[in-house]
């Protein structure tokens, strides 16, 4: 399986370990945040958080109580970091980083993807293993993770690492940057999951078993979010709503 898999098994394993660890980190982090859901130091104010004092709904949190959430957060952080280092080390040594680093033409390709998704152009651009939007997201993810780790260190050990905490603007600000980095990761992950189900559910297979069929790729299906989820050889228009079917049919006739 290894050689012909779309994603190397190390990438697949680290992906799912990351998915679990990240979920637990975010949820336990939100429970920790609820211990004092505001950024202002006591007796002071904080300019930049519009929801000061409002708790995160308990259903989105993990750990049960503050101490429990802290235990989870401080245990899972090692899983996240070690797993992340394995992933980054692997793609560095194995060459997959080449699929992800930005290069000249990415902005043009991004624009091409936006034009395709907004029905300005008709055919799915062919941009290699990942399209420019994916590349941007997958390239940004490790960097945001680095921000999470650095800001996390600054609020975990604000005395031992006081130069770092000070550079970030002090404890309250470091805590805020940590929170914002979490929001960025959640937004990216949510967009990623949305696109998986709305555009390329077949990638679930390539990210678990590694199996992949060119025929089912978004390019071959000419897939936009919720459009052409099924391969074009099958009766694709049957699954889409009536007004949409018109567009699909038009496109289909053009392809065939």
């Amino acid at each position, binding site marked *: *399986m*290894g050689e012909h898999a779309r994603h190397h*098994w190390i990438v*697949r*394993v680290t992906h*799912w*370990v990351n*998915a*679990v660890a990240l*979920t*637990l980190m975010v*949820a336990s982090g939100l*429970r*920790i*945040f609820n*211990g*004092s859901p*505001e950024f202002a*130091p*006591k*007796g*002071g104010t904080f300019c930049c958080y519009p929801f000061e004092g409002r708790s995160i709904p*308990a*259903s*989105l*949190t*993990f*750990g*049960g*109580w*503050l*101490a*429990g959430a*802290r*235990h*989870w957060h*401080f*245990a899972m952080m*090692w899983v996240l970091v070690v797993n992340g280092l394995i992933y980054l080390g692997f793609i560095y040594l194995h060459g997959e980083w080449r699929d992800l680093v930005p290069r000249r033409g990415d902005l043009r390709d991004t624009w091409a993807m936006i034009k395709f998704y907004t029905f300005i152009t008709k055919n799915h651009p062919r941009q290699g293993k990942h399209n420019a939007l994916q590349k941007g997201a997958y390239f940004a993810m490790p960097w945001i993770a680095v921000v999470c780790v650095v800001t996390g260190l600054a609020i975990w*050990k*604000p*005395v*031992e690492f*006081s130069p770092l905490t*000070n550079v970030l603007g*002090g*404890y*309250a600000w470091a*805590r805020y940057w940590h929170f914002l980095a979490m929001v960025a990761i959640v937004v990216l992950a949510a967009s990623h999951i949305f696109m998986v189900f709305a555009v390329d559910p077949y990638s679930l297979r390539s990210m*678990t*078993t590694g199996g992949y069929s060119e025929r089912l790729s978004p390019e071959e299906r000419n897939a936009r979010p919720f459009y052409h989820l099924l391969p074009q050889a099958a009766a694709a228009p049957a699954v889409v709503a009536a007004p949409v079917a018109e567009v699909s049919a038009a496109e289909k006739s053009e392809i065939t």
Partner: protein
Amino acid sequence: MTFDRRDFIRYGGTALSAALFGACDSQGPEKAEKLLRYAEKKNEGVERLIFRHTSMDHAKSNVRAAGDQFPSYFVSDVVPTLDAGAMAAWRLEISGMVQKPLSLTLDDLMKLDRQTQRVNHYCVEGWTAVAEFTGVPLRSLAILAQADPKAGYVDFQSFDNGYHESWDVESATHPQTLIVYAKDGAVLPPAYGAPARVHSPVKLGYKNTKYLTKIVFMPERNGGYWTDEGYEWYGGV
């Protein structure tokens, strides 16, 4: 590689259901308890490894002192307060693994070399408060009492309904660990731990016992009020 598909689905499924199990304000599977304890122990090792007596906390100059916005906290039903008689009888005892046990009145304490520092108070809940604390560094008291170098732990005990927390001796003898009797230039009020409390920016708030009665140098750790409830024993900042 011999990581077959079935294995992948089995382990992946277990991990995923753990994650889903998590999405409902749960404490997580009970089996994880052991693992979390192990992680806590390892984390304590890392924290003690990077701990330095030369790392200092300084409150940012543009952050105002919390003043009376500094949360008052105790575990008794009402603010533990000593009346005049009790105050006269109050002693701070330094005992355990020491050559010269001390029994200090508040006056005795105030006559020792004092230190005033404007520092952060880091609460486990996530908030911080700035205050100016005045008191005697515990390391001076340790020298005065000739604490045994083999005493690895220090227990801070109080008259607040049995509240106590034990520390590692390295944190207890950090230059910013004070036995505090004044806050923001005034005598420490009962709401903040009068007549004396321990305060250090290197420990989370709950480790900083108020309403002090005894400081005991020990060969072993002795838990603590919140530690026994399940919070980290080390509670370092």
